[in-house]
């Protein structure tokens, strides 16, 4: 390491005072960032990676404080600096990018104005008239096409990736020395993620600044950073060069994380820690053989969902005599797709946001009415039944769903047990308190949820536990088809590994079919026999998982695959 690092965090401990006493979110952390270096802080939720960066910026909320240690930023003691000094530091010297770009932008102001605000606050020397040009320059820098037009755009008119670019432009407007990116690409599509990360790395090099990338994704960290710091439960467990940490991880936690990251050439069982993986492989019952030549469980033919293109712009345009845009009157979210799912088969439906995969799953679930097309389930045309009346029919119990966000999909006022038995109370044949409780406990055992957690409310459960409650609820009625809508997107990798394995076991044990909706090809491959790739409402490629991933035919599939950041394979 050269003489003086740009940022030097020594023995940092951050405490939060809560109702249950003082919680040490970060304990004795040492991190240093050299000039021009890109450092990744990797860890799962609750590891203290975000808190560490907040402490560096001194933006901890009221309950938190730096209890011990020192934070030196290019010779300034952050701990002792006045609030005025810190204000100068933030934005001009240290900038931050947050996870949700839409939340970081003011929704009712033009993006150009927002960039100008930053310039006006921090750059005194520039002429006032100059700000507009400077803002356009900043937009140009983050490779936004037609920056002069985009200057006048409101955040809602831009896509998620575009918004993140604007946020980066905001962060870099004053040429900071250090950029802190807190999960900058979580929630973005893989191809967008690649574009945004490439941009961040390129700008870091060009502007000779340093970057701290905070992420839960080891693959991302490996692909884009010089050094990696792995954090667990508020402590740094390993610091090493990116190449070294993958070739030769030292700490057991790092090894566990690496194992759990889905990647090419591994099976579902490999994601679990060694002993557990072996145990799971042994105890798993043999898969229910799907009989050949049988009628498919679910048959979709020429399914279409159209939304009317409406909105004030068209009406206003007519009013003021402007020419309406030459577009069809309807928007086809799903454009005539056909596929089938066999008994006991799991099919992955992959695509980026807006490709129509969620709309498709909603129609199959009968939560949404299709415009045209056939949905045949178990030989019966359920597409003809209106969603409103479907809820009370016995068929309802044959198709169930596991939702994307385990928190949002649980009623905050229901205990875990109440949530699990809700479908049984409505559609099941089990009556009586004790019988319901017994079934609930049986289901909890099946999904590996400790019985003592059954009386808790959702906010008292961890993400993985909530996911298990959601799965238990979905399988409570012995469904034949379960739609998994990105069931692990909100979970940490190690929890994701466990949940995916659980889903695999349940499928084999209960003989269900899965429709796995996801944007992540790597995850889909682990669980699914067949993969369907969708783009703009159409199916672009369909085939066995192995074939699609190893030998993609469509250009779009290829693009999706190359965009996934791959960590080097771990050595065993």
């Amino acid at each position: 390491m050269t003489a003086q690092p740009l940022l030097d965090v020594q023995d940092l401990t951050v405490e939060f005072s809560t109702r249950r006493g003082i919680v040490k979110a970060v304990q004795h952390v040492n991190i240093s960032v050299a000039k021009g270096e890109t450092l990744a802080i990797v860890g799962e939720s609750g590891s203290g990676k975000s808190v560490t960066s907040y402490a560096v910026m001194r933006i901890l909320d009221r309950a938190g404080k730096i209890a011990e240690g020192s934070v030196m930023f290019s010779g300034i003691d952050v701990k002792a600096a006045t609030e005025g000094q810190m204000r100068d530091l933030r934005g001009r010297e240290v900038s931050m990018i947050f996870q949700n770009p839409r939340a970081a932008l003011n929704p009712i102001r033009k993006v150009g104005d927002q960039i100008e605000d930053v310039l006006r606050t921090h750059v005194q020397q520039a002429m006032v008239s100059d700000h507009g040009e400077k803002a356009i320059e900043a937009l140009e820098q983050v490779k936004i096409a037609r920056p002069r037009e985009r200057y006048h755009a409101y955040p809602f008119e831009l896509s998620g990736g575009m918004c993140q670019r604007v946020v980066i432009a905001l962060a870099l407007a004053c040429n900071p020395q250090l950029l802190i990116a807190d999960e900058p690409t979580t929630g973005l599509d893989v191809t967008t993620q690649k574009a945004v990360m490439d941009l961040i790395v390129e700008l870091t090099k060009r502007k000779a600044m340093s970057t701290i990338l905070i992420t839960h994704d080891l693959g991302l960290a490996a692909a884009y950073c010089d050094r990696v710091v792995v954090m667990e439960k508020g402590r740094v467990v390993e610091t090493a060069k990116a190449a070294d940490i993958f070739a030769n991880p030292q700490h057991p936690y790092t090894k566990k994380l690496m194992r759990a990251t889905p990647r090419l050439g591994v099976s579902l069982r490999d994601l679990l820690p060694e002993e557990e993986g072996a145990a799971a492989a042994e105890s798993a019952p043999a898969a229910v053989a799907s009989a050949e030549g049988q009628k498919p469980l679910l048959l979709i033919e020429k399914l279409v969902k159209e939304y009317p293109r409406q909105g004030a712009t068209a009406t206003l345009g007519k009013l003021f005599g402007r020419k309406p845009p030459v577009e069809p009157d309807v928007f086809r979210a799903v454009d005539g797709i056909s596929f089938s799912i066999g008994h006991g088969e799991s099919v992955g439906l992959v695509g980026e946001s807006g490709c129509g995969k969620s709309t498709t799953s909603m129609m199959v679930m009968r939560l949404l009415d299709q415009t045209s097309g056939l949905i045949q389930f178990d030989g019966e045309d359920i597409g003809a039944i209106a969603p409103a009346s479907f809820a009370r029919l016995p068929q309802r119990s044959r198709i169930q769903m596991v939702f994307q966000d385990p928190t949002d999909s649980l009623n905050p006022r229901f205990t875990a047990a109440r949530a699990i038995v809700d479908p049984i109370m409505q559609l099941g044949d089990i009556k009586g308190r004790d019988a319901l409780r017994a079934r609930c406990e049986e289901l909890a055992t099946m999904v590996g949820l400790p019985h003592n957690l059954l009386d808790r409310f959702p906010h008292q459960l961890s993400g993985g536990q909530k996911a298990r409650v959601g799965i238990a609820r979905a399988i409570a009625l012995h469904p034949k088809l379960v739609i998994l809508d990105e069931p692990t997107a909100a979970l940490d990798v190690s929890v994701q590994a466990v949940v995916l394995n659980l889903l695999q076991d349940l499928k084999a044990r209960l003989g269900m079919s899965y429709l796995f909706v996801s944007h992540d090809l790597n995850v889909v491959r682990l669980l699914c026999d067949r993969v369907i790739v969708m783009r703009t409402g159409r199916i672009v490629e369909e085939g066995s998982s192995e074939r699609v991933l190893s030998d993609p035919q469509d250009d779009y599939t290829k693009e999706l695959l190359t965009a996934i950041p791959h960590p080097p394979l771990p050595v065993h």
Partner: protein
Amino acid sequence: MSSVAPAVEPAGPARTSGLTAILEQTRYVLGENKVTGFSFALLIVILLAAVFGPYVVPYDPLASDTAAALKAPSAAHWFGTDQLGRDIFSRVVVATRLDTFIAVASVVLVFLMGGLAGIAAGYFGGWTDRIVGRIADTIMAFPLFVLAMGIVAALGNTVQNIILATAIVNFPLYARVARAEANVRRNAGFVQAARLSGNGEFRILLMHILPNIMPIMIVQMSLTMGYAILNAAGLSFIGLGVRPPTAEWGIMVAEGAGFMVSGEWWIALFPGLALMIAVFCFNLLGDGLRDIVDPQRRT
């Protein structure tokens, strides 16, 4: 927000059952927030006065004693006596029951009308929303107190009609809050999940959405309780409410108002003070109640 979820299992004491948890939470909130504790103490005093008041007061609130008319506060008559020689302290305490009853009844009524209509409007949208919205707009087009006066004048001078009038003028407040809250949740994951579990639309409304809106509705009820008391007293003050000689804070202030000029300040002051304390108490209560009923605060 994945970063919020604790990585390790909270090793706190084992979760206690429903009632104990609520009691524990109540104790915590009261201890944490002195103002809430104070308002709860005040509420208990008001409730005790409402329930036991008539049995413990030293004088009959309706018994006049012309010999002791217009006496200033003394040891015998703590709050003094009015122009008919009635003991003001006894009247103020006894009136608590009537005033609190009117307030509670009107708030419950308006919750049933406005709250449920609002939730249905927010959840179903479309025509339900339009109809409820326009009813609320129509009510809000009138000065509320004038509207309440009109309703009581038209329907007659009874306690039931005061309750109804107070409920109607508060309708838009409840309908709008409930509508907004239900609207946010209509497409929440747990509502979708409830549909998948075979819940009908009305069941979802009552079992899934309503309980999630209760915390904010309870705060709303507590806040309008103060307004309801004021409204009832106001109606009585202008002669459109409870009729004399019934003990009621609004009438007592009205009766005392004429004597202020001649120096008999106590006739109007003490009922006015009681009114103020009651309104004050219910307003303070709102925030404390929200903390208690919200399970998210009960970690």
